[in-house]
């Protein structure tokens, strides 16, 4: 049995047991009743509505936000990454500063800043579009992630031996052509494990969007706790930990499998 499978089995069995034990330790004799309450409120936590008729928030919003933010960050990260390896030293230095600033800023602060930096609504072709907390959160999350992706991008490109660049150049390729046709096809597989790690980080980070007022799982939980009483708070937080774990853990294991097979970018 290889080590990833072992860790996976241990984690997927052990962690829920561990959380259940914690749950029982907190609630003692009331454990059964509390578990019933959790089950009853599960649709609200997952989708934001008590009956699964509309999808407006909850855990699904977290997943949606992480996917959209990842897509935006991937585009931004590649642009910034190309800047990091640009020939002009000014472009390189500017990109480097931008990357370091974004990478060193706390996600929470960026999210707060987005709340005030982004306007309430923007005019696009004469149509007023309201920038909802959801959009603000997605943008706020994608900024630091873009910086991380840019760094992975640079690391992946640099992992390819420079002889590849030189021989392509001698064949008459231009710089961006070399990047697109020769370097990236070799570098992308190397980047995948790191990108997956970043995605897992981003997904875990979506719990922070509660500060922007977006209707994510934590704000759903807050509403529920306000009605069921603060003594139920620990239970709901354990449950949320469990949900996040269920989603993030398989990604982490898959990442490790891939890492062992194809290696990864050392940053």
């Amino acid at each position, binding site marked *: 049995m290889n080590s990833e499978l072992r*860790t996976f089995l*241990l*984690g997927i069995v*052990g*962690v829920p047991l*561990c*959380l259940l034990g914690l749950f029982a330790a*907190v609630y003692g004799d009331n454990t059964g009743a509390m578990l019933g309450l959790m089950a009853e409120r599960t649709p609200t936590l997952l989708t934001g509505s008590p009956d699964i008729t509309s999808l407006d928030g909850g855990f699904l919003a977290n997943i949606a936000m992480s996917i959209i933010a990842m897509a935006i960050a991937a585009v931004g990260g590649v642009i910034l990454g190309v800047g990091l390896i640009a020939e002009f030293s000014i472009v390189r230095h500017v990109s480097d500063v931008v990357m*370091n*600033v974004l990478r*060193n*800023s*706390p*996600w*929470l*602060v*960026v999210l*707060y*800043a987005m*709340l*005030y*930096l982004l306007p309430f609504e923007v005019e696009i072709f004469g149509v007023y579009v309201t920038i909802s907390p959801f959009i603000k959160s997605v943008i706020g999350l994608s900024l630091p992630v873009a910086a991380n992706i840019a760094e992975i991008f640079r690391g992946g490109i640099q992992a390819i031996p420079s002889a590849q660049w030189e021989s392509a150049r001698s064949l008459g390729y231009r710089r961006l052509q070399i990047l697109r046709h020769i370097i990236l096809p070799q570098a992308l597989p190397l980047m995948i494990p790191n990108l997956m790690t970043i995605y*897992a980080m981003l997904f*875990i*980070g*979506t*719990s*922070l969007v*509660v*500060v922007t007022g977006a209707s994510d799982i*934590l704000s759903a939980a807050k509403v529920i706790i306000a009605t069921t009483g*603060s*003594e139920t*708070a*620990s239970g709901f*937080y*354990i449950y*949320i*930990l469990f949900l*996040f*774990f269920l989603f*993030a*853990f398989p990604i*982490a294991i898959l990442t490790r499998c891939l890492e062992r097979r194809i290696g990864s970018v050392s*940053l």
Partner: protein
Amino acid sequence: MTLDFSWLGDPLYQQWLITGIGTTLLMSLLGILLMLAIGIVGALFLHFRIPVLETITTVLVELFRNTPPLVQLFFLYFMLSSVGLSLTDPVTGRTVPLFSGFTCAVLSLGLYNGALAVEIIRSGLIGVPSQTVEGARSLGYTRFQTFRHVELPIGLRLCMPAMTNNVVSLIKTSSQAALVAVADIMYGATQIMVETFRNMEVMLLIWALYVVIASLVVVLMRRLTSMIRIPGYGVDQA
């Protein structure tokens, strides 16, 4: 859009910010110490494959790594405050709750980043050349002595780049503590925003403060890395 930083002249706000920086730094420092302790002990359990402890460590590491630190913090805060242990301050004679927001924040930082540190230190230990370990063993070191005097010192040095990232991540994560009312930079900022309504300016200043702190820590850690480096072990960093 004009930025108005005149509120910075107010001594009260300056004091809030400075206390906030102090609290953030203290919290991060304690968090880092706890993180290192957890990381080293956890890595020791995994490295020596101590029967039961190894399994428990694996489970706990996966639990803390794959769940949001914010929810961990909320959980600790709600659970531990309901336990309600308190201790008496020997100086003032007042009873203070043992698990204040600050303690919970330090604990949660230590646990989350400690779980990451376990894996980081373990990969550092794996990176120690087997010849070095065998050399120590043949000189008569016991397994634990080898760990204590040879593998750990070299392993910690090897994992310094990853550890730098982890330390920076810990400092960044510490901003969450404001959400359980720890008076750190972030908390000071929200207070100032409530009073002055200069939301954007305050947020930009806080952003800059965190970036400066994190960048300084990165520089310091690089310095430390090259200072303690043993020639021949690890990659050369020019």
